[in-house]
């Protein structure tokens, strides 16, 4: 990198570019890029046939289906309620608002294992919530529904935090004008508010979805980990690692990583698109 750097960097009187960039690139390369590329090398060394037989095995397919399905449901739940929470936090003033706003970040701060055992105990058949839900036939703990609950917890802050600044930008006068021109409330929401917030809503949804796909700690406790039924993809990787099936683990890990990268790319494109639309 060193010989080409000078041409790539605009001249500045500030010192320290070489030192800091050197640290950043070598640390990033050693800790992140080298191990990640080695994973793909390892999965690639298996050959396409072996790779496919691991990925397409019924147990792996069931795990992928659950991971994607539950993550999608959780992200959707977060999109709907995240919109409500963000709207309420920006537009209304009520006692406890600041506390509510601070609490939204809890899933970022609370260790996933702690959330996992807590949610499981709440929704278990003898737990404070499970006690009422299980007799109604709603089984949360040790069922796919539990996976959705855990993933909803984990992804909750993303939609709220991406929507808040966007909602703050919407001038309530625009809504008033629309209403005074005869627009009904539903029309105001669909024609005025929704177009303004949609890119951010989509970005928040995608971030919550991506976070849910990789989640492990909170899910292992509540799901019960039954193969074919409540086993998520990260858990399948764990199971294969514990059985020293490193090839199988690397195949599933590589497939999941590739999917996450596609998602990350999509999020970046979305954010770029929404930022561009803001000024139009």
């Amino acid at each position, binding site marked *: 990198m060193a010989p080409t750097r000078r041409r790539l960097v605009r001249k500045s*009187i500030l010192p*320290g570019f070489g030192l800091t960039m050197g640290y950043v690139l070598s640390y990033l390369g050693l800790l992140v890029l080298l191990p990640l590329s080695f994973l793909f090398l390892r999965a690639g060394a298996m050959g396409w046939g072996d790779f496919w037989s691991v990925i397409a095995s019924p147990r792996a397919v069931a795990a992928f289906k659950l991971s994607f399905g539950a993550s999608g449901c959780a992200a959707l739940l977060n999109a709907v309620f995240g919109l409500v929470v963000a709207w309420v936090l920006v537009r209304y003033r009520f006692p406890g608002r600041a506390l509510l706003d601070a609490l939204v970040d809890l899933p970022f701060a609370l260790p996933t294992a702690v959330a996992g055992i807590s949610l499981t105990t709440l929704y278990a058949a003898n737990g404070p919530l499970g006690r009422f839900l299980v007799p109604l036939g709603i089984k949360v703990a040790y069922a796919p529904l539990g996976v959705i609950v855990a993933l909803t917890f984990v992804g909750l802050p993303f939609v709220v935090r991406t929507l808040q600044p966007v909602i703050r930008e919407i001038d309530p006068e625009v809504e008033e004008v629309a209403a005074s021109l005869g627009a009904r409330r539903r029309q105001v929401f669909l024609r005025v508010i929704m177009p303004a917030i949609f890119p951010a809503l989509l970005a928040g949804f995608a971030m919550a979805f991506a976070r849910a796909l990789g989640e492990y700690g909170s899910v292992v406790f509540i799901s019960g980990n039954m193969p074919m039924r409540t086993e998520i993809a990260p858990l399948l990787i764990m199971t294969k690692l514990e059985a020293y099936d490193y090839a199988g683990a690397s195949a599933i890990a590589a497939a999941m990583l590739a999917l996450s990268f596609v998602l990350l790319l999509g999020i970046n494109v979305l954010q770029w698109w929404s930022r561009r639309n803001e000024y139009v």
Partner: protein
Amino acid sequence: MNTCSRKSTGAPVVRWFLIGAALSFILLFLVAPLAAVFAYAFQKGVQAYWNAIADPDAWAAIRLTLLTAAIVVPINALFGIAAAWSIAKFEFRGKNILITLIDLPFTVSPVIAGAIFVFLLGANGLLGTWLEARQWNVIFAVPGIVIATLFVTFPLVARELIPLMQSLGNDDEEAALSLGASGWRTFFRITLPNIRWGLLYGIVLCTARAMGEFGAVSVVSGHIRGVTTTMPLHIEILYNEYNFVAAFAVASLLALLSLVTLAGKKAVEWASARRPVEEFGPE
């Protein structure tokens, strides 16, 4: 912020319905799990709680967790400062790619984060045989836990500092340098005081995540009780042994840490909202 008083979003019915929906969602998904941790931890009284925390294995887990955080946080804080300095203060090509690459560990599942180091440094990994020949235990030992935690918390400080430094601009530093201050002096006297709150919050976030990481550490730890179990792993062991009071007692310590993190974020928001006043105020 007078938007609320105009009630532009309609009738009180809608307003209270939305507030009610938001509150119930937060109560069900955030407050209930948090409250449950403390309720179960103190279920059998203060004495049982204290016994669970004073247990030698719990102490070993707490010590290992603190040791891991003490190694990981300074390294990643230094990285965050270096990344923010090079990205925010200079213009170069490929900047957006670099920022995306720094965010990469966030999109990697914690289990995969642990797995890549098992593949690389484990017994039959690329560097594993070399490490084994020197009898250096990395995987299923403390160094592996540290490396996995480094990976998982990698972007946290950088992510706080990059936008902050970008918003502050270069004017202060350029003035100091043109008045003859050295590079280091400029950094310590100008830049560091300007970013101190963001840096502090990044460090708090990084500490909380380093102490609470479960998936990645679980893969590389080997689960040797009292030796390679961090607090989250110890919680898992206790929980799987149906020792719920002890599990929740240790969990309550981490929950407390997460509350400190949330308070830290609010404090930083306050401090940075106050900054313009502070700057023009008397010295």
